[in-house]
Every structure is written in structure tokens, then in C-alpha cells.
């Protein structure tokens, strides 16, 4: 056990399906076991979660994997030394297009179904059609420095669609399904439970997931300030250990159903288990009323066959930084000067799991 310097921890999270590790560590007693008294504080926007972490209003947070890098570079304000000692999850996002757009694409192809996962190339005829009227398809993601954004870009690139061929908006997760229903959005790339919700409500068709695009790219990470870690090194190790154990607990599929039940509570996702459970169980709902697609790694928190799954390895961080550079989020100079080893701290991770 560790010599805990700070027992009471305020941990920020966003109400998404892949917040499972923090919820499980709390509900199943992992935090307690490691001597921590954790308060989970639900956040409503990534910007506010970031500000609260930078300022110490919260001690640690579940963050989008690119956020610690963005904080260190000062991409969204003041430079802040945020580190990540643990990868909490990989994959978990999906690209959903509106049912109306899907029907149009079927008509273009003169077909009754489109095989999944589908390429962005299927959008081509509709993009051309709209171009004649001076219009574009509109897609949305949640946050610029996110895997959702890089996955959407990747999907378009693979399908030979230029980003300039579509309108891209940033819309909060809770706004995605209503905006698709009202016809304001033709597609989005978002995490659970929002893809499943769109399908269940007959509003959208989920055609592709992170597992089909940037396979096993880190999605959510534990983020904390470098100064906080220096001040509370043992507490940091305990926090990593507790969350690592929760990730391992989630490897077991029957446990994931229990996780779905817990996540559906009002204090967490506050939504029906019907839209939370599928992705956790490796089921990608595609079209309302049809057989789901099996995507075993849809939401992944650990694997038995890869002991390095949760390790914030240098190459994981480098890969994310490459994606950030490719889409113009960071310059070549910033990329060159970036020291990933100071952000993705596998040394802390290795110390924690060796205990």
C-alpha cells in the first residue's frame, strides 16, 4: 500500500459510456481499497473540466487522450503541465449518419442496404448533388482536440472526401441526436451512449466505429497536473492502481453489463441501459430493428493478451501528436519540440502496477 498524502480526491468525469472505469472504481470499492476517499464530480463540458483541472478545483479527471498534449502546448489558453499516468480506454466512438441521408445514399446506389463498416466514399453522390445547389452535408464532433475529430478526418480521408466538402460543427454530445432529428446534422462522430441512442430512436445509422478507423487508439486518459503529482506522488500511484484495477474488472463481459446498470443511474449518465449496454458488450447498433454488428473492441478498458493496454506508452502519445499535426492542430515546430515522455508518463504507470 501507499503512504497517502491526500486522502480526499475530487475526480472530474464526463457522463459518457467510457467513464465506466471511474464509476466502477467508485462503486466497486477500488478507490477505498487503495486508501482513497474519492468524490466523483460530473462535468458538462470539456472546457470547464479542463479549467477546473488547471486550477485545482478538481484533483484529477477523465480526459480526452489529446487534451494533456493540448494543455502542455497551450493550444486552448495558458500552457499547463498536465500529465497522464494511465490510459483508461481505447476505441468507443462511432460515426452515425441520419436515417434520411442513409435513405438517399441507398437511392443513389439503387440498393437496399450498404455493407458495414461503410466508407465515407458512399457520401460522394450526395455531396455532388448538394454542390449543385451550393450546399454541403453537415457533420459534428464534440471537441476539436479529440479522437472523434481525428477519426472523422481519417474516415473522410480514407473515402477520398475532403474536409472542405462538408460543414463541420462542434456540438455538445447531448445536442447531437436532437439536431440530427431536426435535420440540422447529417452525421456526427461521438462516443456512447449517443450513437446507440440515435439508432434506437430511428434517427440515425451507425456505420463505422473507432475500431474500424484508428484501431485501439487511446480514447480517455487519467489527467492530472504535473505539480499535483509532485506534491502527492504516493496518492497518484494509489489513484492509478485503483483505476487500473477497475479497468481490469471491466475486461470481463458479464461485469460490463453490471457497469451498464450502474452507469444508467441519475448521478452518472442518467439514461436508459438500452443505449449504454450495447457498446460495452461489443455490440454496435447499426439500424433500428436490424441485427447489431459485432464489434468486440467497441469499448475497451483492458485486455488479457496485452499487458501494456493501459500503459501511456511513448508511442501512443507520439501517434496522437502525429494526428494533431496532420490535421493542422499543431505546427511542425511544435511537434518537433514536444516532449511526449513528460506528458504520457509511463514511468508512473510502471511504478504503480509493480506494487
Amino acid at each position, binding site marked *: 500500500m501507499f503512504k497517502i498524502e491526500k486522502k480526499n480526491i475530487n475526480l472530474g468525469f464526463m457522463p459518457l459510456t467510457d467513464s465506466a472505469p471511474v464509476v466502477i472504481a467508485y462503486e466497486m470499492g477500488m478507490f477505498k481499497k487503495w486508501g482513497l476517499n474519492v468524490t466523483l464530480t460530473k462535468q458538462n*463540458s470539456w472546457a470547464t473540466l479542463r479549467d477546473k483541472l*488547471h486550477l485545482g478545483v478538481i484533483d484529477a479527471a477523465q480526459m480526452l487522450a489529446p487534451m494533456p498534449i493540448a494543455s502542455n502546448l497551450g493550444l486552448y489558453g495558458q500552457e499547463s503541465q498536465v500529465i497522464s499516468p494511465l490510459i483508461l480506454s481505447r476505441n468507443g466512438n462511432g460515426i452515425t449518419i441520419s436515417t434520411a441521408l442513409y435513405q438517399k445514399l441507398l437511392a443513389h446506389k439503387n440498393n437496399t442496404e450498404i455493407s458495414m463498416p461503410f466508407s465515407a466514399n458512399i457520401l460522394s453522390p450526395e455531396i455532388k448533388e448538394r454542390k449543385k445547389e451550393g450546399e454541403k452535408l453537415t457533420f459534428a464532433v464534440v471537441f476539436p482536440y479529440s479522437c472523434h475529430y481525428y477519426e472523422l478526418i481519417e474516415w473522410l480521408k480514407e473515402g477520398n472526401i475532403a474536409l472542405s466538402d462538408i460543414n463541420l460543427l462542434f456540438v455538445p454530445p447531448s*445536442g447531437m441526436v436532437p439536431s440530427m432529428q431536426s435535420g440540422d446534422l447529417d452525421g456526427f462522430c461521438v462516443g456512447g451512449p449517443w450513437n446507440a441512442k440515435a439508432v434506437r430512436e430511428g434517427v440515425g445509422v451507425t456505420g463505422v466505429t473507432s475500431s474500424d478507423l484508428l484501431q485501439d487508439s487511446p480514447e480517455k486518459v487519467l489527467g492530472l497536473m504535473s505539480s499535483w503529482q509532485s506534491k502527492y506522488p504516493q496518492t497518484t500511484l494509489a489513484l492509478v492502481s485503483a483505476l487500473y484495477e477497475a479497468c481490469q474488472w471491466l475486461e470481463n463481459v458479464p461485469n460490463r453489463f453490471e457497469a451498464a446498470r450502474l452507469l444508467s443511474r441519475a448521478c452518472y449518465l442518467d439514461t436508459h441501459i438500452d443505449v449504454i449496454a450495447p457498446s460495452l458488450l461489443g455490440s454496435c447498433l447499426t439500424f433500428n430493428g436490424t441485427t447489431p454488428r459485432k464489434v468486440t473492441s467497441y469499448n475497451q478498458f483492458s485486455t488479457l493478451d496485452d499487458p501494456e493496454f493501459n500503459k501511456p506508452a511513448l508511442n501512443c502519445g507520439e501517434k496522437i501528436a502525429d494526428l494533431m499535426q496532420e490535421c493542422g492542430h499543431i505546427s511542425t515546430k511544435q511537434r518537433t519540440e514536444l516532449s511526449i515522455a513528460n506528458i504520457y508518463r509511463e514511468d508512473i504507470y510502471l511504478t504503480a502496477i509493480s506494487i
Partner: protein
Amino acid sequence: MKKSTLSLSKNNHIKEPTAKLKVLLAENNHVKAKALMDVLTNTEYDIYHIANSGVPLLKDVEQLNPDVIIIDIESPDRDMLENLNKISQFAPKPIVVFSEQENDKTTINQIVKSGVSAYVVGDIGQDRVKSIIDVAIARFGLFQGMKQELADTKQKLSSQKNIDKAKRWLMETRQLSESDAYNFIRKIAMDNSQKMDDVAKNILSVASIF
């Protein structure tokens, strides 16, 4: 869209003599919205309250083309509004984030550095709300590429008295004439029954964040 609060006197023009600044208040809670709008009554702003979220809110922003947006720190729409400038078809907007939770001044100053134009923390009825919004707008202008100019200005101003400093800062950042800048500070002081020196300090405390 509900519109309220139209008031303008001679000396408080910000951009050009005929323009009133448009302030969009994005707030789903009508009680909170009313409290903030009451504070901003009888100022040089046109206040527009919008209770929409998500894409409908984005459309309202596009249509209204406000000079500044005010939003609750706990709103899910914050990510959307803060990233407006990453979407080519929208011009970037200064954002003022408010929070009902009290924090000390250091915290406010720190949080402003983290990306938004300004934070209003604590009791939204405080007199400083107006001047913070004023300064947020000026700050945002700087954020768009005038940082060097400001650095030079800050250097030049370091030896002057508060009012002179605040006046010069307003002149540099908002292209106001000397008398307009002076009147601007005086107007805020009169509206809030404050000393001009205090208003100047208030402006400078936000200016110093750069």
C-alpha cells in the same frame, strides 16, 4: 428570441458612434437569465437572451452576430461556443463565462488565462460585471493578433497613473480618442457609483492578465 434593455447615452459608444454592442446571453434557466439581464439594464448594450442549446443556439449566434457571448460555466454548450472560431463560416466571438460559485480573485485571474475572454464569478449582481464585459471585448480584440501591440503598450504605460493607464489602454486597444476613453471610464464610474480610480484599477486588473 427575446430582446430587452435598450439604453444609450452619448459618451459610452464603444466601436463607432452609432453602434450598440450586442450581447448574447445563452442561458436555459430563465431565473438566472433574468438576474443577469437586470444587471445589464441601462447599459450601453443590447441584450439578447437565448434559451436554445446545440445547433439551434449556433444558428441564433450566426443570425444575431453578437459582439460578445455570455454563458454559464456549467453549460454543455460551452465547448460549442468556445470553438466557434475553429469553424470557418463563423467569426470568432469573445466569451464571458459566469459562475455562481464564489472564488477568490486570483482564481478568477488564473481561469481567464485558460482560454475564455473573461470569467464572472460569484454574485452576478456585482457592479464589476459591466466593466468586465467591456474589458472582455477589448481583450478579445487583442487575442486576434494584437498581442505584440499590447506588450508595447504595457511597457509604455508602466510608469503612469491608473486612470491614465486605463485610458491609454482603452485608446490603444479600442481605437478610442482620448476624450472618449476618459468618458468611458467616467461613465462606468457614474453608473456604478464608483471612483474613477477604482474603475481604472478594475480595467487594469483584467488588462494585466495578458
